């Protein structure tokens, strides 16, 4: 192991330093450019993302489904028993903490906002069929779970699995290019791997800066609804950003098993309190019935939905703005969430990892949507109504309108604002960590100075985005990394598929192989 790392040190030291400076200065250029000429930044970012996404819809849809199939094959195929690490390695985090961290990093704040809003949106404006009917209610739950379920976690899980496999098993650095460097020996491999590293860094930086900017705007909208603070003041937005930056910098200055872990656990605790509170004070039996129905509907529709592109239904627009958008978002977030999940998953088997990453979060999100969406549906169908009107009026208010139907509404509103804040801080903290990792040769514990440098960089980029004042730009920048990263992910998969057959499977696996053949 020492030899390998010495070797990689000699080979990559200049390049990794180079990559730190190149990527940081590219980010700085975007930040400065955004402040000096927001119009140019907005035009460039939106033109590029729009062209890429409208041309490549088939590619994103097919690849996300392919990832899911591949993940399932890996879990149940002959390599399922391989451990991500040495045989004697044990998981670093308890399974509960692990799932909590998966969830905080991967879904974040969107879950809170869309919990009630998305089922109600599909219920009132279904892509197919009549709105407001029992059928459309069921369809709404299925679609929501489809967007937040296995497919999302297949994207994250596969990216993470590859890095974890190469990192823990073959001692490569935790860089996007490492699997390529390891598996392919052609002359092209070294520059391509370097580009892959750079794309991953930029993808994470842009994605998180964009998300940070959106988190700020969400908090601002939430504060506006709950406390009546100004809704569109840039000063206010920058103030919130400052608070966020200070918080995640403090968290980043501590080690991962303190800062991020604690934040994730607080997050999950608060989210769980909300969930259980609504489950109890809301229409409990209705919610549970929704949950059971949703699980059954989702699993029985999974295959059909995964490959459906609705060419005959005239709902391309719906499809593009929902399903496709979600899938692109998951890919855009994959370099960041993937590396982070890889980092916290040492010592688990491929099967355990895939099942954990796919099943646990999916079941939790089905439960989540059943509780929030089910309560909202209950208000709409059996109770006083008003949810659909609230969602049509302004999606951000849906959660707060839902709370008004429950006891202690102001407290719930406050909890959810705290939750949003911590979610955003956790994401940003994980991102500085991941960026630190990526720019210090994939070290599992990057130096604090480098993390803080990235923290400042992210803050500056978010400030630039906020000052451009154009939300479209913020969004476009956040998903800009999706296209190149989708290609990198394919190369990584190729690397994995070429390296796996060389594994000498243990006795157990070999036995299984014989039985199977």
């Amino acid at each position, binding site marked *: *192991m020492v030899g*390998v790392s010495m070797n990689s040190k000699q080979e990559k030291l200049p390049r990794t330093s180079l990559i730190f400076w190149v990527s940081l200065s590219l980010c700085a250029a975007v930040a400065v450019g955004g402040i000096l000429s927001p119009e140019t930044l907005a035009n460039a970012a939106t033109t590029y*993302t*729009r*062209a890429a996404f409208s*041309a490549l819809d088939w590619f994103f849809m097919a690849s996300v489904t392919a990832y899911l199939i591949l993940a399932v094959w890996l879990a149940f195929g002959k390599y399922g028993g391989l451990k991500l690490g040495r045989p004697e390695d044990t998981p670093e985090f308890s399974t509960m903490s692990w799932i909590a961290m998966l969830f905080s990093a991967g879904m974040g704040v969107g879950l809170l906002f869309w919990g009630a809003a998305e089922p109600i949106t599909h219920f009132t404006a279904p892509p197919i069929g009549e709105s407001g009917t029992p059928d459309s209610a069921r369809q709404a739950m299925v679609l929501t779970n489809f967007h937040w379920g296995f497919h999302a976690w297949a994207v994250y899980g596969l990216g993470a699995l590859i890095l974890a496999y190469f990192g823990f098993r073959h001692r490569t650095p935790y860089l996007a290019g490492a699997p390529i460097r390891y598996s392919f020996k052609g002359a092209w491999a070294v520059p391509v791997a370097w580009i892959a590293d750079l794309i991953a860094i930029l993808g994470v930086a842009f994605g998180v800066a964009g998300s940070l900017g*959106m988190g700020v705007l969400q908090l601002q909208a939430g504060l506006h609804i709950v406390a009546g603070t100004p809704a569109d003041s840039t000063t206010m937005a920058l103030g919130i950003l400052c608070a966020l930056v200070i918080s995640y910098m403090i968290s980043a200055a501590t080690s991962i098993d303190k800062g991020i872990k604690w934040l994730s656990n607080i997050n999950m605790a608060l989210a769980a309190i909300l969930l259980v509170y609504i489950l109890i004070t809301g229409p409990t039996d209705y919610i549970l019935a929704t949950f059971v129905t949703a699980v059954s509907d989702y699993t029985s529709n999974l295959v059909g939905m995964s490959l459906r592109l609705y060419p005959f239904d005239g709902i391309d627009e719906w499809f593009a*703005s929902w399903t496709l*958008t979600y899938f692109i978002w998951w890919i855009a977030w994959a370099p960041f969430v993937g590396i982070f999940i890889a980092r916290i998953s040492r010592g688990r088997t491929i099967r355990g990892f895939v099942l954990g990453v796919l099943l646990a979060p999916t079941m939790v999100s089905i439960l989540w949507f059943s509780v929030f969406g089910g309560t909202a549906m209950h208000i709409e169908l059996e109770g006083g109504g008003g949810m659909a009107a609230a969602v049509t009026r302004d999606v951000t208010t849906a959660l707060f309108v839902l709370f008004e139907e429950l006891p202690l509404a102001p407290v719930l509103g406050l909890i959810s604002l705290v939750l949003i804040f911590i979610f955003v801080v956790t994401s940003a903290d994980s991102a500085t960590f991941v960026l630190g990792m990526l720019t210090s040769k994939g070290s599992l514990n990057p130096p604090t100075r480098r993390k803080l440098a990235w923290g400042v960089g992210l803050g500056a980029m978010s400030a630039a985005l906020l000052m451009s004042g154009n*939300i479209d730009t913020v969004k476009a920048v956040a998903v800009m990394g999706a296209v190149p990263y989708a290609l990198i992910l394919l190369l990584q998969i190729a690397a994995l598929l070429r390296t796996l057959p060389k594994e000498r499977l243990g006795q157990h696996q070999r036995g299984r192989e014989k039985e199977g053949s």
Partner: protein
Amino acid sequence: MRLMALVALVLSTSLGCQSSRDESLQIGAKPFAEQAILAEAIRHLLIEDGLDAEVVTCSNSFDCQRRLRDGDLDVMVEYSGTALQFVGGPTPDREDPISQVRRLFRPLGLTWLEPLGFDNSYSILVPVNQGATQGIESISDLAQLPTGVRVATPAEFLRRSRDGLQAMVRFYGLRLSDEPLVIADPVERFHALREGRADIAVGYGTDGSISNLGLTELSDPQHFFPPYRAAIVVRQETLEQHGQLEARLNTLAGRLPTDIMRQLNSAVQVDGDAPESVALRFLEELDLIESETPVHRAKHVPPILVSYSKQDTLGPETARAFRAVRHLFPGRPLKRLTSFRDPLVPVSSGRAHFSVVSAERFFMKHYRRPPPVEAVAVLGIRFVHLIGPAEDRDEGAPLQGRVGIQPELSSGGFIAETILSTMDENATLRGEIPVLLNKIRSGDLDAALVVTEAGATEIARPFSRGGLRISSIGSWLSPRRAVNMPYLRRARIPAGTYANQEVQIDTMSVQVVLVSPSREREAITGAAGPAAALSTPMRPLTSAQIDRLSEATGILETPDAVLPSLWTTGRDAMDHEGRNGSGLLETILNLLVIAFLAWVVFLVLRRPTPHAMSDDSSS
């Protein structure tokens, strides 16, 4: 119909809120805006007092009256004149109508509270100086119409036996020329009038739309219509059950003079606001309820911003825009945003959701490329009017000489200026239409070139005094000019639009449209996504919303094909190949990705090279 739907919506929400249906007081409302507003006001007064109440819409006055007497309803607002029809009609004596109904209704167990303040009499309306009814001032004069009277009316007026249409026709000795047009929505009724489909329209004295639609009321010289003083009627047993009720409801007494009621009605009928929110605003202003916001109304809902330019004087179109937008976003506050220069700018820079503009705004020189906005609905059509003195019989060069046009920065001023510049002419004077027409009359101008809707009051009124004439200008629009001013279309002003205008006027028209951010501008990343919870404030509309919007304007015509819109750029926001060269970019991206996929497949499938064997898998 829309009004009914609105009322039904309010009803269903309010019904749903109440837990114990049996206990709650039933408030009756006839199916029109005024009744819905007043019923909501009563409901909120009662809720404020801790009583449960719900609004029930009955199908008409007869239905309401029957249900009130049967005890299905507890309270409603009734008009003295209407009520008297049910108990034998008004007596000819000079008794105060309210004390008369009080006396007649007491045996029925119904108590009339203090009058609210307004008198909602029927009114017979005609357009100002237009069409067949020019010069007619009273209902009795209608008998002079040689071909009989064409009537646009709400259904109930047909059925009422003592103060209805037939009774009126018999009373004044009129003759109907056709089957009456039955139109429920008052605004549509008045449009029928203005479009010449009817000679008179039946309205209510408190209709919110009368004042801004250029209508006058005919006098009722022989007092066919009794007074219709509005008051709250409550069942006696209900008053006895709830001691505080009478005092509480009487707080409204006298608080609703006719002009206030007209404003409230206008908020619903013209601006399309929800009756409940209009009622709440009114009660809050009078301090009759705490202004603490009730449940179900989010506290800080950001308003929808509609921008328009004051100089453009697009009054009716802006009103129509408000109605349509309210219809699309029910319950959401609307805010007007006046812009001085270009009303497109607030939308294109993301500061307003909508803008009311005339089509030529899209073609202003300062746009090097099209602004990122699109037309979502047509709000009206404006015509180019070339007006000169009546005695001028020279048809040859009407555009030469001293020509007056509308003010600088106004839509009409811009069009007229562009037309004049093609003739190498300059405007002698800029001013509002009445000023220009006065100058023609006084001989200071040879012509006025103005753009406004056909039959506009500000032209119709001076025309009825004579001395003016509209000339045809349609032949000016040569194909070459049509290319330079693509927003102009050949059109004709129908004969009889203005006084003494016996022939059609051949001229040009331009659309007035509602504009919202371009769907093209939105990144494909829509509202969805893990971190995309925030609602983008100025998001483009979906095509379904656009469909609903153009339905709500009542004008089914699509925006002119030269304007960017749903109908010219395609329903699918992504379907823009060929625009801005992105088609090429998309093809290249596709080819690159396919090549890349092929390469990856090749990498996986080719035979492993011996030295690629890993050296540390043994560890």
